[in-house]
C-alpha cells in the first residue's frame, strides 16, 4: 500500500516537527505517569518524590544515621563501631516506596530506575561542598555469578550520573569481588561481617594510589561491606574513602530504636 506508506511518512515527519515545538512530556520511571519536569536532573514525578522517604537532617556525619553526632567521635550508634571509611551519606530510608524502588532495581530488571535514582543522588550532592575534593568514583562490585543473574551492577548505574556530575573518572573495573558471597540480607550482624571479609580485591593499585575516593552502593545497613571495600582501597594506597548510598537500612539490633 504505497499511498498509505507516504501518508505514514508525512504524518511521521509532521509529528517529529511538532515534537520540536512541543516536546512530549517524559514518563516517571517509578510510576509510569506523565509529568512536567521542573528540575532537569530529577527524573521522578512530584508525586513519587513526595512518597520517597528522604533522610532529613540532623544525621550523624560519620555513619549517616538520624540523630546528633560528632564528625570524629560519631553518634551513639556508631561510637563503638570501627569503620575504615571516613563517612557515609545516605539519601533515603530503606522502607516504604524507597524499598519498593530498590527491590525493583535489584530483582525486576529496571536499569532505567537505577539511573534515575543515581541522578537524584547526584542532584542531592550538588549543595554539599564536602564532595569537591573527590578524585574518583568507585561502585561496589558484584560477583560475576550475580552479575549474570541480575544483568547489570546497580551500584555502577547509580555511580554513572554521580561521576558525570562531579566530573571525575568512574573506576568500574578497579575494585572486584574475588569471592562469591551470600546476600547480606537475612544474615545476623556477626555473620555479615564474616561474610564479606576478604571478598574484595583491587586490580590496579596505581589508579587509586594517593586519591580521595567516593564509594557508591545501593543500601548501607551495618556498613561492613563498605568498610571492607574501604579497607582494601586504603591498603592499595588510597588517601581517603567516603561513601554515598541510596538508602540506609536499620540493622537488626537497632531496628526498634531507629
Amino acid at each position, binding site marked *: *500500500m504505497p499511498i*498509505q506508506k507516504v*501518508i*505514514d511518512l508525512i*504524518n511521521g515527519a509532521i*509529528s517529529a516537527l511538532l515534537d520540536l515545538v512541543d516536546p*512530549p512530556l517524559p*514518563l516517571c520511571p*517509578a*510510576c*509510569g*505517569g*506523565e509529568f512536567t519536569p521542573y528540575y532537569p536532573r530529577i527524573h521522578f514525578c512530584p508525586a513519587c518524590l513526595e*512518597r520517597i522517604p528522604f533522610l532529613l537532617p540532623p544525621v550523624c556525619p560519620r555513619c549517616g544515621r538520624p540523630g546528633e553526632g560528632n564528625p570524629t567521635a560519631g553518634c551513639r550508634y556508631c561510637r563503638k563501631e570501627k569503620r575504615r571509611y571516613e563517612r557515609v551519606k545516605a539519601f533515603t530510608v530503606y522502607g516504604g*516506596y524507597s524499598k*519498593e*524502588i530498590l*527491590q*525493583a532495581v*535489584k*530483582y*525486576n*530488571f*529496571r*536499569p532505567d*530506575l537505577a539511573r534515575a535514582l543515581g541522578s537524584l543522588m547526584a542532584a542531592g550532592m550538588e549543595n554539599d561542598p564536602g564532595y569537591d575534593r573527590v578524585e574518583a568514583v568507585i561502585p561496589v562490585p558484584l560477583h560475576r555469578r550475580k552479575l*549474570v*543473574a*541480575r*544483568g*547489570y551492577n546497580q551500584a555502577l548505574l547509580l555511580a554513572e550520573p554521580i561521576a558525570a556530575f562531579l566530573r571525575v573518572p568512574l573506576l568500574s573495573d578497579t575494585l572486584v569481588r574475588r569471592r562469591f558471597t551470600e546476600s547480606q540480607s537475612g544474615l545476623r550482624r556477626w555473620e555479615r561481617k564474616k561474610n564479606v571479609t576478604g571478598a574484595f580485591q583491587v586490580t590496579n593499585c596505581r589508579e587509586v594510589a594517593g586519591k580521595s575516593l567516593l564509594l557508591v552502593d545501593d543500601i548501607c545497613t551495618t556498613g561492613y561491606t563498605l568498610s571492607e571495600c574501604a579497607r582494601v582501597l586504603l591498603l592499595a594506597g588510597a588517601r581517603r574513602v567516603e561513601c554515598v548510598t541510596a538508602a540506609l537500612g536499620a540493622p537488626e539490633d537497632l531496628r526498634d530504636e531507629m
Partner: protein
Amino acid sequence: MLTRRYFVTLRRPKKGPPAVGLSPEPGLDREWIEKTAYSGVAVWNRPFPLWLAEDLQQELSRLLATTGDFSLTGLGRKLSARAKYWGWPETGRWVDIPRREEILAGVFHHQDLFSRLLPAVLPGRFLTLREIASALSRAGLEVTDGVLEFLLHMEVLNGRVERLAGVGLDETGRFFCRRCGERERIGEEFSPEPPFTCRVCQSCLALGPVTGLQPLYRWRGSLPPRAAGAPLLTLPELTPWQMATARQVLAFWEGNGPRVFLIWAVCGAGKTEVVFLTIRRALAEGKRVLLTVPRREIAKELGERVKKCFPGLTFTLLHGGQKEEHPGDGLVVATTHQLLRFAPFFHLVILDEADAYPYRGNRMLINALFNTLLPEGKLIYMTATPDEEWRKKAVRGEIGLSRLVLRHHGFPLPVPALVQTALPPEENKNWQVPAPVLSFLHKAKGEKRQVLIFLPTVRLTEKAGRALQDVEEGLAVDYIHSRDPGKDRKLKAFEAGRLHVLVTTTLLERGLTFPRLDVLVLYADREGIFSTETLVQIAGRVGRSILDPFGEVLFVGEKISAPMQSARLWIEDMNKEAKKLGFLK
C-alpha cells in the same frame, strides 16, 4: 515491588496487515524481528498495565481483521480512544525503538539453558512468574524476575508460551480471574502506579495473589511425550470382590463408553488399591495420571501409600506448604487446590473422597478439576457417599458405576443404633454429661476400647470435652477441632492409645483409621451438620481393622431425624447387597 508495564507493538510484515503484540521491553522485539519475516516494529510509546494492554491488543487485532488496512495514525487514534475509555488519558505515538545491548546481554546469556529447562517446567502448568522462577531455581537456573520475564517474552514471540493477565477482562468488560474463573470476588487494592488501583482475585488468594498487573504463563507448544514403561506394583492380595471392581475399572479405561466412572465403595473397602492396577496400565501406555484428594492430610497419606505400592516409581507430590517435583514423570498426587496451577495435561484423573469438604459444591475446584483433563481424558470418582445427582446419573447410564459393598475383611458394616434422649441445651454454662453417654463410656472402658465422640459445633466440643475431663479419674479425655493449634499432638496421643476418649467436630469424619474404636454422635438430629453422608462416613470409622471388625455406633439425638434414619437404612442396604454377593462372613 514495582510492577512492569507493557507496550503495545505493531510488527509489520513485508506484505499484509501488521500483527499486534505486547512487549515488556520493545528492544527484545526489535532483536527478534531481525531473524524473521517482519520488516519493522512500531511501538506505542506509552506503556499500559497488563490487563489494559491485553484489551487494547484485542481491540486493534479485531479492527485489523475486520477492516483490512489501517494507517498507523488511525490505529493510534483508536488505541488512544480505547485507553481513555478505561481511564488512561495520556496521549502517545508510534515510535521506532533503538537496540539496547545491556538487556540483550543479560537475556542471551541464559537463553540456551532456559530453553532447555522450560519444557520440563512449564508444560501442563499455569503459573505465575514467581512460581516459574522457583521451579527453575530447583532445576538449576537462577535468574532475577526481570530477566526471567524477558526470557519468557522471547518464548512468547517464538510461539511456545502464552502470556495472560492474571485478572483480565472478559467479552462483556468484566474482570475475571484467569486462574480460578472467579468473577464476583475481584477486589481492588492500592498500587503505586496510576490510576492507583489493581485488581486482585480474592478467591484463590491462598495460592499466591493473582492481579491484573502480573501475568500468568502457560505452555502452547506440543506436550512432551512420556517414556512408556510399566512400573513395579506390589499390592496386598485383592479379595475376589475387589478384583471384580478392578476389572470393571480396567474395562472402563480401555473401553469407549462414558468418560466418567464412579466407584461407590463402603468405608474401609480398600478402594484406593483397586485403582492402582488401572494407574499401572495407564503409566505403562505412557499416559499421565493425576490422583487427587480434597484434603492435605489425606494427600500426604496417599503419597505414602503410592510410595509403598509403587516402589521405585518417581512421582510428584503437591500440597500446600510442600512440593516434591520430579518433572517429566507420569503420576502426580495433589490436593484439589493445587489443580488451579495446572492446564489440560492428564489422560486419567482420579478423585478420591469426591464428596469431602472443601471440594464438594465448590465451583472453583470443580472447574479446576475438569480443566486438568485432556479432551480425550477420563475421570474416576471414588467415594463412600455419592451425591443424589451422581447416583441418578449412574442409574441413567451417563456415568459408569461400580459398587464395592463389602469391606476387605469380609465382615458387615456395623449398623448404628438410634437413641432418643434428652440432651442438655447448648447454651448451658455447666454442661452435664447425659447418663447414656456415661454408661457407654464405662462399657467401652471395661472392654479397653477407644471412643470418638462427635459433636456439631466447636463451642459444644470444648464444653463437653471439659465436662468429660472432670467426670471420672483415670479416663483420659481430650477435645480437638479445626481451630485447635495442638490437634496433631492430640491425634498422635489418641493413636498411641494414651487417650481413651476424643471429643471432636466433624473434622475427623473421614480418612483416619483407629483400631478398637467405638463412635458416639451427640446431637445427631442437627440436620445442617449431620447429613446422611456425614453420618454414613462417621459410622464407617468403626470396625475397619481385620483384628476388630465389629464395633458400636450410637446416634444420640433429641429426636430421630430423617438423615439418621436414612443413614441407617443406607448401611443396612449395603449389608443386604453384600449378603447377596455371597462373600459375607
